[in-house]
């Protein structure tokens, strides 16, 4: 059996290795390929690569007015800025809580719906419905629910409690985590259901014949097969957790109560106030953190999911 690194060699009748020469491309072929590639190439250059360098440039100047090179001063300023620190802390806290919850709860839901339960398809549709609701409507519903005079507070009052200003207290993040889960669980659940249905039935049947319990089946077989999906859902949820700013902004505006002030608030506000140097430095810092997080996830996935992927 050949190992992965060994290459098949073709020998001639005298035992010499036959080396095939690649046929060189004609100028016509090169031109055709170039022409096909050029729209994408220019698009990527103009809309991605060029702005990328512009951001780096902005991050190293004192202001868009003076444009004097200040090196790392903006990064230092942003890292020492207490609003940025608060925003980073809040965003990290939100992601740390909401992403694992989004994975675990959607997986549980997928496992439940995998069984033959009554109204299975109705439930599936029900969980997916938040995806179809426009953000503005979601925000309106949440305002009705969690407003100071909203439904939740009325219920709290009925049971003898004191109303809570949900969006202007430390409970703010809890409300937004619930909103995030409500909106994303359905999509994650569908991804997990698809992954679960792709597990070879024969493997599960053999394990059942061997007397494996449901728990053992889940842990030793299903989890192994759905690991790539868990990572995918994890990365998607992480990205979505950064995008929750949209809902928070519509619910609470530019400057929300401290616990709801996210990194994108910082960036959005600095954009509006023309502090592009701060915005760019913050974007680069956030980008580096994202690269590290996603890099770690890739490495972990590489280690854990290798045997299943083959």
């Amino acid at each position, binding site marked *: 059996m050949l190992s992965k690194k060994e290459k098949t060699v073709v020998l001639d009748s005298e035992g010499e290795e036959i080396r095939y020469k690649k046929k060189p491309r004609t100028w016509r072929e090169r031109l055709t390929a170039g022409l096909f590639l050029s729209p994408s190439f220019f698009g990527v250059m103009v809309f991605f690569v060029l702005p990328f360098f*512009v951001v780096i440039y902005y991050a190293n100047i004192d202001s868009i007015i003076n444009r004097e090179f200040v090196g790392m001063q903006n990064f230092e300023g942003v890292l020492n800025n207490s609003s940025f620190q608060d925003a980073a802390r809040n965003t990290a806290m939100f992601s740390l809580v909401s992403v694992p919850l989004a994975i675990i709860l959607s997986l549980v839901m997928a496992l439940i719906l995998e069984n033959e339960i009554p109204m299975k398809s109705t439930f599936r549709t029900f969980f997916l419905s938040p995806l179809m609701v426009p953000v503005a409507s979601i925000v309106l519903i949440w305002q009705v629910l969690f407003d100071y005079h909203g439904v939740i507070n009325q219920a709290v009052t009925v049971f003898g409690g004191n109303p809570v200003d949900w969006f202007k207290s430390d409970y703010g993040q809890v409300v937004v985590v619930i909103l995030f889960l409500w909106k994303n669980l359905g999509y994650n659940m569908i991804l997990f259901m698809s992954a679960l249905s792709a597990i070879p039935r024969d493997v599960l049947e053999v394990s059942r014949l061997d007397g494996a319990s449901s728990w053992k089946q889940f842990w030793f077989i299903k989890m192994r097969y759905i690991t790539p999906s868990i990572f995918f859902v994890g990365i998607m949820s992480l990205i979505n957790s950064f995008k929750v700013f949209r809902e928070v902004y519509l619910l609470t505006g*530019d400057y929300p109560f401290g616990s709801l002030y996210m990194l994108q608030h910082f960036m959005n506000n600095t954009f509006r106030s023309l502090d592009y140097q701060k915005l760019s430095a913050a*974007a680069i810092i956030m*980008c580096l953190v994202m690269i590290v997080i996603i890099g770690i996830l890739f490495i972990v996935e590489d280690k854990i999911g290798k045997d299943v992927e083959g």
Partner: protein
Amino acid sequence: MKKLFKKAMCLSLAATMALSVVGCGKGKDDSSGNAGQGPGKSSEAKKSNPDVVFAEDTDFAIDGIQGEATSFVVDGDDIYVLANEWDFGDASLGDAKLATLSDSEEYDMESQYTTRVYKASVDGGSPECIYEGEVDGEGYAGSLIKKNDGTLCFIKTVYGEDGNDYALFEYNGTEFEEKLDMAKVNDNSDAYLNSLLVNDQGQIFAMYDNEIKVLDSDYKEINSINVEGYFDSSGMDKDGNVLITTSEYNEETEVSKTLLKKYDVAKGSFGDEYELDVSYLPTYDSIMPGTGEYDLFYRAATSIYGYKYADKQAVKIVDFSSSDVDGDYIGSISMLSEDEFICSYSDWTSDTYESKILKFKKVDPSQVDNRTVLTLASLWGNIQLKQAITDFNKSQDKYKIKMVDYSEESDPEAKLSADIASGDLPDMYDVSSYGIGDMSVGQCIAKGLFEDLTPFLEKDPDISADDFIPAAYNAMLRDGKLYTVSQGFEIQTLCLKASEVGEEPGWTFQEMKDYVESKPEGTKIFYSNNKSDMLDGFMYYCGRKFVNWDKGECYFESQDFKDMLEICNTGTNDEMDYEEEMPSTYDSIKSGELLCVDGYLTPDMIQMYSKLFDDDISFKGYPDQDGEGLSFSYDGAVAMSSKCADKDAAWEFMKQFMSEEYQSKNYQDFYCVPIREDVYEAYIQCLSCTEQGKDKYGNDIYPREDQMYGMDGLEIKMEPVTADDEKDFRALVDAATGYVEYDNSVSEIVEEEAEAYFKGDKSLDETCTIIQNRVTTYVNENK
């Protein structure tokens, strides 16, 4: 290895995509002196477009028109001009001018008018007076039109106590006779009749402010159109269709757009709509019939555009600024072609209050001068600045200042911000509204937008810091540097009865709260007793004192702020209904129901406030932590861009506002106290004179004996300013230290959160904690 490379590529592409999102909106890299380079309005203004430059046709003159040419109509080779000559009786021209500028309607009621209609050639020459009415004290004539059968008509407006009455007069060949009492057409006495229009089918349109009555040629009503909301402007297109424009403001996007609507005769309603790329049209008759390839022309604040329905595109035909014409002086316009127009022109700042009919012709592009253009950005337009620019440009052969008027844009603030962000900076900024849009002067300085003017002032041979009233000048400085120039100031203060609060200016919130609490329940602090209105006032004048930008600290949990909210909470949550019959300010103060009146103080206003209070008055000012109270409010402030293309030239323009020559010539037109010590003397001389004479600069000055000042039902006869008044005012000036600076974002947060406290939903402490939390985030973010 290959897999690792792939992943590295993935990561770097993700990074590129993430960062590229914030990289859009790139401006051009530039060195110093980059103002006006880029795709924005400043660049557009600097690019000399010789095709939009017009000049007065000096060969054209219609001499001999008596009175003010208020309306005219061009009919082929003839022009008919309607003029009203005002007779002010014994009142002086100075009084008349003042009355015209400030309170014309009241003054008009006491005036006598003579209406005349002249006929002249569109090429000019002596006019023939075809009608001269009798001297009339009841009203004046306007809206001259020519019906399709060639009959001339005008509308006479008669002021009444319950609104205006209108009558239509028709020319019978020898005189104008009343044909129609417009009350029969529209019996709503509050409706204001803007103009008359005649369409191609001979229908007459009476354009009331929110309703249009369509009459046939015999003045019988054939249609009535209720326009939703008010319309800005009306006029005709080339084909004789009647048009109106309405401003549609989107509260969410804060963008306003102007819709042009065409009247459909068959349907009897407005049908086709076209969007004009302008936030508003400045006059009710801004739409004019097109000529040549254009269906219509419309006039914006600083330009005239040609518009084609088919292209849905407007093309700039005339640029007033490039033509050295102050558009505010121009009344009605009639475009004879794309290359010439006739207009009524009133220079209301001149000593003679001159009003005439002028013709402007397009200048041969090869003859247009090529002076260096410097731009001055103004968000909302500024009449005084425009006038100063016109005067400066006429005196210059090397430089030319152009006002870049952002008020023409759908969203002026967003457009200016976008221009700044793209590096397209103007050379100067109009900061008379205490900043640029939402950015206060302080924030603009912090962002490096403004140039430090101190070195220019120090080396200037004509003006120096010693020329100015010390307290007023010092309060303009930020960290010892001068960033804005201003022609004058007012003292922003709060007036109360001295017998109750003492005479010394300045007090703390605690003192004010104690004073308010000592009064019986139901006593109002301000005329509007609404809690939010009071808080808005406090935030406007005292808000900046709760934030220390240098330290990045906020003091919204301080006792002072809590006292302020408690003071506001003594009011009511009911919206102030100004329509409601309620006691006047004077009666409210007299009965003890009202405690404070806020005001902008000049020496002559001391007597006005004294009479309003009918008692010894104290100018306490708004309370603050240090008990200082009085603030300066600066008028007509201008700042230089840190990237100004020619700073010395810009300074030459800017310094004129603080120069003796400019101030001595114009101080009587200021709505403020001149900042120069020497001109201040002339200003006091003018305010205190008891008989007609000359001030120290040789300007005519008139006694103020006959002038009345109306305030909320009280007519106050203005006396010459006494030495005591002047002394008191000067003492207030010397005591004032602060300046008015408003931070919209802070105020919005405070007002939003305070509402819950005012409604009783939250405690004072809870409210202050939330405000402190949110504003701290804002302050730290902008540190």
